[in-house]
């Protein structure tokens, strides 16, 4: 899929490089306020953010649907404005809205997409795309006769028809049933194995947690955070142990001042925060010391902060 004509240097470059990207709409609304973002070749990158954060605007600019106000975007080393032909032929887009022709057949529409992106006919490749998306049996059907889930897959097939190196999926699993969502995830993994870089926007945290190599959070037109998903989970993925006490405490006993403890529920509970990654969680030692101090508890539970909590706290703190 790689262009042999491109230099080795270009192959080593990030697949997508966004610098100082801003967008102010004619209405005066500033959708993007100086986005800097680098996407690595072959990764699955999840862009998280609440509605109206600028996810779709960002994608639309990279794909050429929206004109940026300032800033540069390089796709595969090509400037998306100056070298738009080279840049765009690397990119496939599956937009959020289901927008398909009604009367076209599945086969005709994928053939159209491939041609539109400047590729010569290749029925064998298109057959493979349709088979992978379980659409081969429907190739002769008019799109209007297909179910919503199938239409969405048709849009993915259209985006893949020209063998893109970068695939944008804007909310790919919004309003999609569980089974189909699993299917989409499998498809994304398959594409990544073939070297396709995937950038997906979602507000299902579960999806980012499941799929992404790296996570970026965008809020009010700014990138709030970009982190390797595992690092992110590790860094912020702390656990808490909550001990429900037999009798309430007024304050944390001075003997336990060195332990990261908090009183909760009006003194009825002790909350101990620890890092899952550390060798010793310190739970055993804590319980021993509580016993020595004569503090009895009737119940205990541990909780793990999820990406969702991290996300919510990030967005709120802004």
């Amino acid at each position: 899929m790689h262009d042999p004509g491109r230099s080795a240097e270009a192959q080593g470059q990030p697949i997508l490089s966004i610098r100082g990207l801003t967008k102010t709409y004619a209405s005066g609304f500033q959708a993007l306020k100086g986005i800097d973002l680098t996407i690595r070749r072959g990764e699955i990158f999840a862009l998280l953010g609440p509605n109206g954060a600028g996810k779709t605007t960002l994608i639309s600019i990279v794909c050429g649907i929206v004109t940026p106000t300032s800033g540069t975007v390089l796709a595969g080393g090509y400037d998306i404005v100056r070298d738009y032909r080279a840049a765009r032929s690397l990119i496939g887009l599956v937009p959020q809205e289901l927008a398909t022709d009604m009367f076209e057949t599945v086969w005709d529409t994928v053939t159209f997409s491939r041609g539109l992106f400047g590729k010569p006919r290749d029925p064998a490749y298109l057959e493979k795309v349709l088979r992978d998306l379980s659409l081969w049996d429907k190739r002769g059907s008019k799109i209007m006769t297909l179910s919503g889930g199938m239409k969405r897959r048709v849009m993915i097939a259209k985006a893949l028809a020209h063998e893109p190196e970068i695939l944008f999926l804007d909310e790919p699993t919004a309003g999609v049933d569980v089974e189909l969502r699993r299917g989409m995830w499998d498809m994304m993994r398959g594409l990544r194995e073939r070297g396709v870089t995937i950038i997906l926007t979602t507000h299902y945290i579960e999806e980012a947690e499941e799929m992404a190599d790296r996570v970026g959070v965008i809020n009010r037109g700014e990138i709030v955070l970009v982190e390797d998903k595992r690092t992110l989970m590790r860094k912020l993925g702390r656990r808490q142990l909550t001990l429900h006490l037999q009798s309430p405490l007024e304050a944390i006993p001075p003997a336990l001042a060195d332990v990261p403890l908090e009183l909760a529920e009006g003194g009825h509970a002790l909350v101990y925060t620890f890092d899952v990654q550390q060798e010793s969680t310190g739970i055993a030692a804590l319980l021993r010391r509580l016993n020595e101090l004569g503090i009895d508890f009737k119940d205990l539970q541990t909780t793990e902060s999820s990406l969702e909590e991290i996300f919510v706290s990030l967005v709120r703190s802004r």
Partner: protein
Amino acid sequence: MNVFMNVHAIRAIYRFEMARMWRTPTQSIAAPVISTSLYFIVFGSAIGSRIAEVEGISYAAFLVPGLIMLSVLTESVSNGSFGIYMPKYSGTIYEVLSAPVSPLEVVIGYVGAAATKSVILGAIILATARVFVDFGIQHPLWALAFLVLISVTFCLFGFIIGIWADGWEKLSMVPMLIVTPLAFLGGSFYSISMLPPLWQKIALLNPVVYLVSGFRWSFYGVSDVNVAVSLGMTLLFMLACLGVIWWMFRTGYKLKA
């Protein structure tokens, strides 16, 4: 991919648009045949039998080029506008905007297909007319040249309307309120010389007069205005349309935010 032209894209758009025509044969073929037949029955036979000759040509024969123009003009505008309006309306325009295509390629694809339909339509009407009237074409190559030029020009004009329109009403407003009246008043059914002197002058402000006149000249060698002027006006109108389209793509007018 060809560095200079995305030929595959032009072909893809062209095929897509032409497929729409073959999907609706009633609308694209049967309708013009029926309406032309009606025109000839009403104007050619019923009324035409009472009009002796216009500029030495039988009235029925005189009608042929005008009728072709009338249909070609309205169909060109409607096809040209529909082709680009439809993806805007359904949202599928995202694909064209995100594709490695230049505005010129988009225009060649859409307008090329629309103009092809218009030329085919012109040929169908010509063939239908031959059933009712006996006529010859003095300058067949010029007739074809005028037909192609006018088809392309009015498809370009339609393309502009298709980009400009943001609702179905606007889409049909220009063809209904401007193109059809201009086409009717443009000498499709009569010679400008039949009008009172003042109206002859006013008629010359109507661009359609030049098109019909030039096209009729290619049939019978008679015209209301000089053929060179007809050709010049057609080309001028075409350039104006291209200029507007160029500006639309450059600014992203109603296409890109």
